[in-house]
């Protein structure tokens, strides 16, 4: 069993035992559900919007080359540099090179999960560059030296008390239990950082092919500052982020806001089409767009699951997933958690080591229902399981299910097996709940039902004779 799978079991056990944290997360999400539903009901037809969004992403992903080339041509014509990074190392090296060549000393970042994916901060810090996260949630987890807990809400798991203690310790601030005061502490810290930074690193939610623009969605304004004040702007994004037309944003921006945060629109949705142009009063002198593959093309090659590349990273699937809500973001042990993470991580990081994430689901389908672009998430989990078995079946399971299929393939055997089960039930009663109990996983928290003394098949035969 891969280490990642054992880690998952350990971490998830730890988090499910933390009842206060689970309750805290549920409470945090309660407000989101309400606002999300309000905003959904404002749509004339949310399902129609989902259908259109799915179609647009289908078009974009299935003609990826054309749209990427169009995007590159348009944005380079405005003076931006586009770097195609086949993997994480190439992306890191390019960004490091840009920083070194331009005498960069201070780097400020806005929120980008893609930079988490390629472990960018660590690489920059190792080379002596100071990197500060400007998004409040990201700043908080950066100070705690933790990864983000959730795709969209990095510090979702922390109470205001914990954040206050953190600021007291790291910033020497006064204790407070007011979220507003805590936010202002972070704001004050950032003001000088924006002004001092030579390089701003951002992600991008979308890349518009038609007009050669990237689009960044945020609420705080930190991304706008990150991309306006420093003299160099580096935007890092996965190749799958491309959209065909500018007008597509008129659908995606409201949907991202509704599904992701329960808002009509997030506060700032900004389109960047190059570095500062002649005649413009401000803006970065250089703009670099790093297009990252990092095995996304492997997911692209899987036609059955290709729609997962349509993900707009809204986090809606995490917000409705009962597994996520009970095990938290850290249990996944990888950048992308929740249902989307469980679907794509086997493709991005290897099936053998990561298929357990696809197994850790009851397949309830809430994720698929929530996804604004209609990714068939829970069925992809099933497909990953099948693919995992094809690639490397577990000998024990193969034997068990082999036996199962023989038994179920012959109804006589099935009926016989149940008679044996009934015979052994009293023996099981003796060990029920003890360390000898082979069904301990169930019986430690739930009562086991008893086999009926006669099955329905037997009863029917007795009462009715044959088929009728």
């Amino acid at each position, binding site marked *: 069993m891969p280490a990642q799978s054992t880690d998952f*079991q350990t971490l*998830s*056990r730890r988090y*499910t*035992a933390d009842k206060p944290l*689970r309750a805290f997360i*549920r409470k945090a999400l309660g407000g989101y559900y309400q606002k999300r539903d309000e905003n959904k009901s404002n749509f004339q037809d949310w399902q129609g919007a989902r259908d259109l969004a799915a179609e647009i992403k289908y078009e974009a992903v299935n003609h990826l080359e054309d749209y990427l080339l169009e995007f590159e041509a348009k944005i380079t014509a405005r003076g931006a540099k586009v770097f195609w990074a086949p993997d994480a190392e190439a992306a890191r090296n390019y960004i490091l090179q840009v920083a070194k060549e331009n005498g960069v000393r201070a780097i400020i970042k806005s929120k980008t999960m893609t930079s988490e994916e390629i472990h960018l901060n660590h690489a920059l810090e190792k080379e002596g560059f100071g990197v500060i996260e400007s998004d409040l949630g990201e700043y908080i987890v950066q100070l705690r030296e933790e990864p983000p807990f959730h795709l969209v809400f990095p510090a979702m798991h922390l109470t205001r008390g914990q954040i206050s203690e953190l600021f007291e310790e790291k910033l020497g601030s006064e204790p407070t239990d007011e979220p507003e005061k805590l936010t202002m502490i972070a704001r004050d810290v950032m003001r000088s950082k924006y002004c001092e930074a030579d390089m701003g690193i951002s992600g991008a939610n979308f890349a518009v092919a038609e007009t050669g623009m990237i689009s960044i969605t945020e609420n705080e304004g930190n991304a706008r500052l990150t991309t306006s004040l420093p003299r160099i702007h580096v935007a890092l994004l996965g190749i799958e982020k491309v959209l065909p037309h500018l007008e597509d944003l008129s659908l995606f921006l409201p949907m991202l806001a509704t599904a992701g945060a329960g808002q009509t629109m997030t506060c700032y949705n900004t389109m960047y089409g190059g570095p500062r142009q002649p005649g413009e009063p401000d803006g970065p002198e250089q703009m670099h767009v790093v297009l990252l593959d990092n095995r996304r093309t492997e997911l692209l090659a899987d036609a059955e699951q290709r729609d997962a590349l349509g993900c707009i990273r809204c986090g809606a699937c995490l917000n409705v997933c*009962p*597994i996520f809500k*009970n095990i938290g973001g850290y249990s996944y042990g990888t950048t992308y958690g929740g249902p989307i993470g469980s679907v794509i991580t086997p493709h991005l990081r290897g099936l053998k080591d990561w298929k357990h994430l696809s*197994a*850790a*689901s*009851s*397949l*309830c*389908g*809430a994720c*698929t*229902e929530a996804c604004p672009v209609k990714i068939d998430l829970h069925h992809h989990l*099933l497909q*990953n*399981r*099948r*693919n*995992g*078995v*094809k690639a490397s*079946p577990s000998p024990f399971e*193969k034997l068990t*299910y*082999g036996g*199962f*299929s*023989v038994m*179920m*393939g*012959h*109804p006589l055997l*099935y009926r016989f097996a149940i008679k044996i*089960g009934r015979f052994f039930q009293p023996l099981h009663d003796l060990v029920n709940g003890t360390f000898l109990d082979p*069904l301990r*996983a*169930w019986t430690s*928290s*739930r*009562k*086991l*039902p*008893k*086999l*009926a003394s*006669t*099955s*329905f*098949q037997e*009863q029917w035969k007795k009462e*009715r004779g044959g*088929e*009728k």
Partner: protein
Amino acid sequence: MRISLFVPCFIDQLYPNVAWSVVRVLEGLGHEVIFPQGQSCCGQPPFNSGYWDEARSAALVTMRAFRDAEVVVGPSGSCVTMIKVFYPDLFKGQPEELEARELAAKTHEFSSFLVNVLGISDVGAKFEGKVTFHDGCHGLRELGIKKEPRVLLEKVKGLELIEMNEAETCCGFGGTFAVKFATISTAMDEVKCASILETGVNTVVSNDSSCLMQIRGMLEKEGSKVRGLHLAEILASR
């Protein structure tokens, strides 16, 4: 109508009364119920775990049993989903593909059959008490069953339905998931049971016995007086 009864393996073994309730309701409505011999398991456990070859062996038995059926009805959202939604996938490109599609088309979950095929909402049932309804995930999201059980429960004399907050939240059973990831499954069960207890009802009803097994398992372990009944059992009570 000649209705062929599909009895999932765990109902056969653990909850035969649920199957008898279906028989009583359908025969009470004047239909003929046939119970084809030779049923075993729809094949969901190996299928869910990714062992599709092994799942096919079991599925073939089910397909054979219902080959001559006009219409197939089963009291389980998850097993009916296996047939209706997944058999076509399971047998894609196989010689049995057409037969799988045909079986999928003629198979129905019990509450959906009553409301959408027979057009019935009142089966003449009587059940005193306050109940809440748990929506089994497969039935809800794969088969689109939401209003049908409620339409039926509304007509049950003496019954008061109180919706719980987490009606649509997964109970945590998920087949082998319940054992492979027992702590997560238990945590989900806790959330579900807490939501049930919040309503103050004395009975939780569902159209999926596997969910009921999970929910009852915890309620009984905790010593709760709340009992769990399958929708069919409610509809069969007089």
